[in-house]
């Protein structure tokens, strides 16, 4: 029999109105990479929170058995004591502290009663080398890319000598290159003897890396697939996840955007006045009516900055020059409310920070950006509001007992859907989607793509920012590629390839020439 390091037996966990886990069984072999997959709200994060003591002993039913012994974790400290470390869906680093302070935060290296900073820095350097992060440990974490921050999180777990490392959607906010690096690192850690549990919605990487795949559906274990004997396919996983076959990941659509240009940007530049650095360099692009325009590029290429600047929100930098036209008329939005009133919407990539009012319920969030349409005189028509919110909850299959559920209590993917629902309800002319399917399961992705197709069919235009090249290729009519604040290429989606996009995305030479 295989060497089982961890077994979770018959785990059940309820929240008010929701049974998140229902007698889940979960077995992990020593030294494997075990992927946990399932639709949004299936209970993956909850299961891992039970394992790591975030939901303490006594708030769930069932047993956690580690190396043959039943464990009772009363908090995250207990699970760390048992060499289990979790990197949660939202990174838990402190941006204002340096890398080495973050790595040893909470278990500082001491010399007597004082922190031994010298040794801390030396140790940090060693660990950083292990995770292949080539930066000075005295850098502030806030200055790092998300990919690098992810590596710091892993360095932190290594510094705690964790034997079991849990990662909750570690690659969802990484681009392909950073993801590949991370996956390579996970393999190395496994080969060094660590056991890794990873939650992911990116099935492509799951089949690439997993030794075992466990599928959860509606709070129960559907199956555990062993990849060591026979290769698992994405199709197979999807079938277990959603309980049916999904033929195409990208729904078909007739591509016939009209020739009428809806939105145009000419020679748009912006710079950061305090550092003098150019954020956007001479950007020109246009979007036709009924067109989906993909905006590709590496992390930090300036895509989000461009979107925000067009949307009227430019904290920390100034628009230096450029013109923007909406339906042929020049516009310049000085705040988001003006942009929304004119019919331009921007769905943020960071749903927690910029997308949602977490302490309010689903209904409040869905209608917030378009309350005007619900007004009867000066009063919000509550009836109509509930009808509309329920409609979007159903359309997007937001999993919650009712639209009264506080958004804070939703699973990550369902939060993302709520954030999208808000903008769908706002019915803009131009919708800018920033990483719209981050953390969303395959089934829901398909639904979102279908909705996008319906929207453009009805005449709306969409700019889609995405780090997933497959998604850009699968959904766009036209693709712009950005690098270092400049547009480095424009491609027709019909003859674009991943390699072609990557070439433009890493093409810094032209970017400099343009700027």
């Amino acid at each position, binding site marked *: 029999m295989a060497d089982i390091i961890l077994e979770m037996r018959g785990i059940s966990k309820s929240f008010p109105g929701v049974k998140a886990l229902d007698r889940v069984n979960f077995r992990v072999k020593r030294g494997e990479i075990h992927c946990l997959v399932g639709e949004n709200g299936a209970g993956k994060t909850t299961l891992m929170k039970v394992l790591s003591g975030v939901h303490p002993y006594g708030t769930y039913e069932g047993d956690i058995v580690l190396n043959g012994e039943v464990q009772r974790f009363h908090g995250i400290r207990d699970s760390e004591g048992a060499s289990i470390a979790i990197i949660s869906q939202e990174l838990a680093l402190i941006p204002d502290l340096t890398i080495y302070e973050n790595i040893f935060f909470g278990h500082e290296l001491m010399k007597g009663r004082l922190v031994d900073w010298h040794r801390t820095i030396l140790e940090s350097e060693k660990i950083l080398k292990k995770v292949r992060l080539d930066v000075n440990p005295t850098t502030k974490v806030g200055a790092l890319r998300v990919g690098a921050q992810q590596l710091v999180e892993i360095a932190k777990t290594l510094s705690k000598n964790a034997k079991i490392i849990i990662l909750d959607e570690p690659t969802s906010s990484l681009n392909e290159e950073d993801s590949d690096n991370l996956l390579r690192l996970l393999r190395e850690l496994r080969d060094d003897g660590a056991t890794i549990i990873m939650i992911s919605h990116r099935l492509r990487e799951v089949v690439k890396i997993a030794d075992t795949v466990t599928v959860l559906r509606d709070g129960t274990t559907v199956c555990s697939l062993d990849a060591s004997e026979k290769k698992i396919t994405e199709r197979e996983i999807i079938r277990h996840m959603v309980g049916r076959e999904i033929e195409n990941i990208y729904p078909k659509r007739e591509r016939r955007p009209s020739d009428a240009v809806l939105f145009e940007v000419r020679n748009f530049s912006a710079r950061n006045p305090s550092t003098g650095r150019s954020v956007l360099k001479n950007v020109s692009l246009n979007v036709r009516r009924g067109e989906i325009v993909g905006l590709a590029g590496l992390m930090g290429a300036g895509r989000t900055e461009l979107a925000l600047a067009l949307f009227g929100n430019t904290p920390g930098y100034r628009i230096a020059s450029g013109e923007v036209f909406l339906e042929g008329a020049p516009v310049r939005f000085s705040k988001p409310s003006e942009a929304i009133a004119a019919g331009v919407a921007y769905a943020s990539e960071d749903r927690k920070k910029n997308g949602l009012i977490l302490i309010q319920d689903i209904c409040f969030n869905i209608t917030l950006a378009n309350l005007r349409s619900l007004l009867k005189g000066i009063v919000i028509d*509550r009836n109509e509001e*509930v009808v509309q919110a329920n409609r979007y909850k159903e359309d997007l299959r937001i999993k919650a007992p009712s639209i009264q559920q506080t958004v804070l209590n939703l699973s990550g993917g369902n939060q993302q859907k709520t954030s999208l629902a808000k903008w769908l309800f706002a019915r803009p002319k131009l919708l800018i989607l920033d990483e719209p399917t981050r953390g969303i399961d395959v089934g829901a992705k398909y639904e979102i793509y279908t909705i996008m197709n319906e929207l453009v069919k009805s005449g709306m235009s969409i700019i889609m920012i995405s780090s997933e090249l497959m998604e850009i290729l699968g959904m766009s009519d036209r693709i712009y590629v950005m690098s270092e604040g400049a547009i480095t290429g424009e491609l027709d989606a019909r003859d674009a390839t991943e390699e072609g996009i990557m070439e433009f995305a890493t093409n810094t030479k032209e970017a400099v020439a343009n700027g």
Partner: protein
Amino acid sequence: MDDNRARGLPGEVWALLKGNIRNYAMYLALMALFILFTILTDGAFITARNLTNLINQTGYVAVMACGMTLVLIIQQIDLSIGYVAGFLGACAATLLSRGVAVPLVLPLILLAGIAIGSLEGLIIGKVGVPAFVTTLACQFIFRGMLSLVTESTGTILVKSDAFNQISNGFLPPVFRMGPMHGLSLVVGALSIALIVWSRLRARRDLKKYRFRTTSAPVFWATLLLFAAVIGVLSYVLANYRGVSWTIVVVVLVAFVYDFMMRRTRLGRHIYGMGGNREAALLSGVDTQKILLFVFASMGMLAGLGGVLFTSRLQSATPTSGSGFELDAIASCYIGGVSTSGGIGKVTNSIIGSFVIMSLTNGLNLMGVGITYQYVIKGIIFILAVAFDVRSRAKKAI
């Protein structure tokens, strides 16, 4: 709902109390204070005369707590309102002593309040000076201004009878029912009818939307309790001098603000901005405008508070207004406004102001000196906030 049914009625009541202890805390506190002071003062506290007094004293804190609720919801603070109220009250007294008519004085004072609040709002929103600093500085400025106004005369007496009626007068005794003030009884009955009607309507809507509702027995029991409290209160008041104008003013302000916060777009935007400013901004909430509005409204209500207070004392003194800001802020926190913003109800803050003023009133009756009152209030304030923070932290897990 399903779990509730399984556990039966006692289970539901218990779950309701446990899950929403934060929402009931102010009622419990109010009840505890009433019982405590009734015992400690040998019943003097619960007399019709004292209850009328208590209500009229609470008026100015209640209206300012309304405005402060909005300020705290958007995660700001206004420390200046005490002396702004004092200053504007003194201005009113001065205008009246110069023979300006009451119908002219009131709008002038409210407008001045709006102007002061807007100015603070502009400094906070446009210039970017934190609210704490701006309003603390304004506290000093208006303390100085108040001294300036009252410098030559010391206390300014208000001789206008109409003005003094605002906080000391009662609805006219149009007709009597036996020994009782008839109009007050009618007002009481009407408010009970109104509350029953609106609660029933709200419940019907909740059912229609298939939202969570309390079970029928619990719903009717709370409704009955509410009706009984209002009934008893109006009966007691009617036996004395009836419903005071202060009650009318507070109810009016509460109604307008409650309506605005629950039913209008503006109210939603205020809650949204309080819950997550960045997300609200990106959802089209004009956060600058909201901030300006909230401070302007606070200024206006500080003006109203000043009027109520000056009218109550029938004079303006060089120290009027000192400490009002703390009473208003404490009222809000006792009434369940979250210390991290985004959550709160004006009606509950008004209940909170009754808690604070019952404390003041009771301590006065017992003859506890003002110095000790400061100490006690300070401690209560910290306890209220500590309770808020702890109970919310527990809920978050």
